[in-house]
C-alpha cells in the first residue's frame, strides 16, 4: 500500500509544478503594460490630420536601436508589451517613435517599414468613413493604456497607415528639432484621388502645387499647417503606393553617408527640394525606408515651384 501512495505522489508534484510554470508564463504574457503618452501639452491639444507618431516593425530590434541611436541620437525606453518587445525612442526625453520586435512572416516577400500614425478624435468613426471610401482593415481598433486607441488600414491604393486617438492629446505644433519627424509624404499612382480619400477622413484642406514636371504634388493641411504631401509615383519601375516619413537632419548628405557607414543604404541621393533644403531617402540595415530632410531658417526662401 505504501508503495502505491509513493508512486502517485510524484506525478501530483509534477502536476503542481507544471501548473505553476504555466501560470507564471500566462501571467507574464497577460501582465499589463503602459505606453508613454505622446501629447506633451497641458491642457491637451488635438490636431486631427497631424502626423503624430511612427512605428517601425523590425526583425532585429537591437540592430535597429543601434542604427537609429547613432544616426539621430535617440535613446530608448524598452517596454515588454505582453509577448512583444517595444522600444520607445526618446529625443531629449520626449517620445518620438516606436520600434517593435516582430519576426518576418515566413514564406512571404515582406520588408520592414515605418508605419505613419495620423491623429483623429474618434478612431472608430474615422475608420468607418475610411472603409466606406475604399480602405481595407489591416488591424482592428485597439486601446492601449497611456497611448490611446489606434487602428491600421490600407488606403484605396494599398498604402498602409494608422489612425490614433491619443488619450493625452496630440503633440503641439512646433518646428521639429533635428532627430524628430518633420514631414510625411504619400506616393501614389493617383494623387488627386488619394487626396480626396484622406480629405474625407481627416478633413484636410487640399492645395495643388504648381508643377514643372509630369508629377502631381498636393499638400494636405489642417490648422493652417502643411501636414503631408501626396505625390505621383514615377511611372517607371516596380512601384507601390506608400507613406514615407522624414526626420529633420542638419545635413542630408552627411547623414546619408553616416547611414551607409552604419549598414544602411541610400535609396534617393541627397538633392534640393522645393523649400530650398536637401532631402534624401535611405534604408536602415533591415531595409526599412526613411526620409532625411534639412530645414533651417537660412534655407533659400522660395515660393513653391
Amino acid at each position: 500500500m505504501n508503495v502505491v501512495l509513493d508512486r502517485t505522489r510524484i506525478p501530483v508534484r509534477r502536476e503542481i509544478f507544471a501548473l505553476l510554470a504555466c501560470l507564471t508564463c500566462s501571467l507574464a504574457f497577460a501582465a499589463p503594460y503602459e505606453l508613454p503618452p505622446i501629447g506633451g501639452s497641458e491642457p491637451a491639444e488635438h490636431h486631427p490630420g497631424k502626423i503624430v507618431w511612427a512605428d517601425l516593425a523590425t526583425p532585429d530590434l537591437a540592430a535597429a536601436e543601434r542604427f537609429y541611436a547613432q544616426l539621430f541620437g535617440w535613446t530608448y525606453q524598452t517596454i515588454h508589451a505582453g509577448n512583444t518587445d517595444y522600444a520607445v525612442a526618446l529625443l531629449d526625453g520626449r517620445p518620438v517613435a516606436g520600434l517593435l520586435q516582430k519576426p518576418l512572416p515566413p514564406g512571404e516577400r515582406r520588408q520592414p517599414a515605418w508605419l505613419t500614425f495620423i491623429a483623429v478624435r474618434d478612431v472608430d468613426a474615422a475608420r468607418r468613413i475610411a472603409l466606406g471610401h475604399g480602405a481595407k482593415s489591416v488591424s482592428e481598433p485597439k486601446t492601449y493604456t497611456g497611448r490611446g486607441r489606434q487602428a491600421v488600414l490600407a488606403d484605396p491604393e494599398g498604402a498602409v497607415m494608422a489612425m490614433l486617438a491619443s488619450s493625452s492629446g496630440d503633440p503641439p505644433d512646433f518646428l521639429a528639432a533635428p532627430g524628430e519627424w518633420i514631414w510625411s509624404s504619400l506616393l501614389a499612382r493617383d494623387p488627386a484621388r488619394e487626396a480626396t480619400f484622406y480629405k474625407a477622413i481627416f478633413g484636410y484642406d487640399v492645395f495643388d502645387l504648381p508643377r514643372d514636371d509630369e508629377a502631381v504634388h498636393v499638400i494636405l493641411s489642417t490648422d493652417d499647417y502643411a501636414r503631408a504631401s501626396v505625390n505621383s509615383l514615377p511611372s517607371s519601375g516596380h512601384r507601390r503606393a506608400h507613406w514615407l516619413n522624414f526626420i529633420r537632419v542638419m545635413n542630408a548628405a552627411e547623414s546619408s553617408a553616416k547611414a551607409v557607414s552604419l549598414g544602411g543604404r541610400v535609396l534617393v541621393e541627397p538633392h534640393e527640394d522645393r523649400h530650398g533644403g536637401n532631402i534624401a531617402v535611405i534604408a536602415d540595415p533591415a531595409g526599412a525606408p526613411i526620409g532625411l530632410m534639412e530645414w533651417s531658417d537660412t534655407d533659400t526662401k522660395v515660393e513653391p515651384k
Partner: protein
Amino acid sequence: MSIQSASWRRGLGASTLLLIMSACVGVGYGGSVGYVGGVYEPSGYDYGGWGGAYRVGPPRGGPRGGGEGRHAPSIPSTPRGGGGHGGHTR
C-alpha cells in the same frame, strides 16, 4: 493504463485549460497579448527614380487664406521653447 500516465493526462489537460484562459485574459487587455502597431510591407519595390525631380517636401508657404491663387501653408516655424505656439515658415 498506469496511475502515472493518468495523472500526467490530467496535468496536461489542466495546463491546456490554463493556457487558453491566460490567452483570453491577454487578449482582453488592450485587445491583444502584445502591441500590434507595426506592420511589414511587401518587398521588391523601387524607391526614387525621379532624380532631381523627386520633390515631395513642404513649401516655404505663402499668404494664408482661401480663394483663387491661394498658397499652400508651410510647417510650423516656432521652435520648442521658442515662446508659444504658431508661426508659419515663410
